[in-house]
């Protein structure tokens, strides 16, 4: 469906009353756009307070990722299932990697997820590509390569791209 398709039909517009604004402005007594710098700082501090929890989560998830990848390599009968687990874990790590200043974890997990979702790739190829990504992610975390990782990060990323390109027939 596109926006143009909608034009063929009756269009009704409804403007629900803005009850949330009524609530937070005490019925319009509070004016302005509502933004408060101090409140934002407080929220940022609360988020930063979870740093250690996310580090522990990453430690556990990377172990699980290694395990699922190993199982995909050795248990060919259930390879698709194990790859699904790899994809799910990579998706989670992608979501929070940058929150703990591990941008490379997010980038590598993203690259892995994209590859695993390629329908045209066989599970055997996906497993090989997963192995390279999982090793790189393990290295990033164990060596505490934070941020973009400088030269080492760039080298690791280039290596991953090269491997992925090879399997995509672009290498």
């Amino acid at each position, binding site marked *: *469906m596109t*926006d143009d*398709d*909608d*034009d*063929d*039909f*009756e*269009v*009704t*517009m*409804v*403007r*629900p*009353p*803005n*009850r*949330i*604004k009524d*609530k*937070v*402005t*005490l019925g319009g007594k*509070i004016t*302005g*756009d*509502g*933004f*408060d710098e101090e*409140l*934002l700082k*407080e*929220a*940022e*501090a*609360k*988020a930063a*307070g*979870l740093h250690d*929890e*996310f580090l522990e*989560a990453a430690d556990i998830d990377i172990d699980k990722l290694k395990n699922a990848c190993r199982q995909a390599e050795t248990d060919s009968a259930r390879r698709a299932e194990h790859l699904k687990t790899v994809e799910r874990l990579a*998706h*989670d790590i*992608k*979501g*929070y*990697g*940058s*929150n703990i200043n591990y941008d490379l974890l*997010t980038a590598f997990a*993203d690259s892995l*997820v994209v590859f695993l979702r390629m329908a045209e790739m066989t599970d055997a190829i996906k497993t090989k590509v997963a192995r390279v990504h999982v090793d790189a992610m393990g290295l990033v975390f164990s060596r505490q390569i934070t941020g973009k990782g400088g030269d080492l990060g760039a080298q690791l990323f280039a290596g991953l791209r090269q491997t992925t390109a090879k399997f995509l027939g672009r290498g």
Partner: protein
Amino acid sequence: MYRLDRMSVMVVDDNRHMLNLIEEILRGLNIRNVSSKLGAAEAFKEMQISAVDIVICDQMMEPLSGIEFTQLLRTSKDSPDRFVPVIMVTGNSDFGTVRAAREAGVTEFMVKPVSAKGLYARILEVINNPRPFLRTKSFFGPDRRRRVIQFDGGDKRKKTPKEKDPGDVEMIPVGGHA
């Protein structure tokens, strides 16, 4: 400063850590009334009992995805509130996902990593600039056209939206913002 403590928010994510992160950010923003659920079905059920002002949900959840959950909120006869603003958090910013979210009736879209600044901005957007809802034969949700561009000439759409008061739309229960 808005009294965000008067709002209630439902957070849905099947990843406990992400759920904690969003909860903490909301607490930092002084939003105390937060319900958190690890699954969309549970959240839907809970919303039928307790009304919420905003839903924040992850996109990639199982068995019910954030997109399916939004569709359910917008179109189900059992929906506790078809107008409830939905902020969708996702690790996927590809065109297909954004389009699917838009078609499902998502109000705001936020790409991970989740930040306090990003979440606060979207909450304020929902409060300050609520979008009208459109109903067509195949869509019900917030107006998907955001940009307003001035141009010379008349409205060239085949059908111009007819504006209705929510009270005129009997089929749509306006709940959840009591």
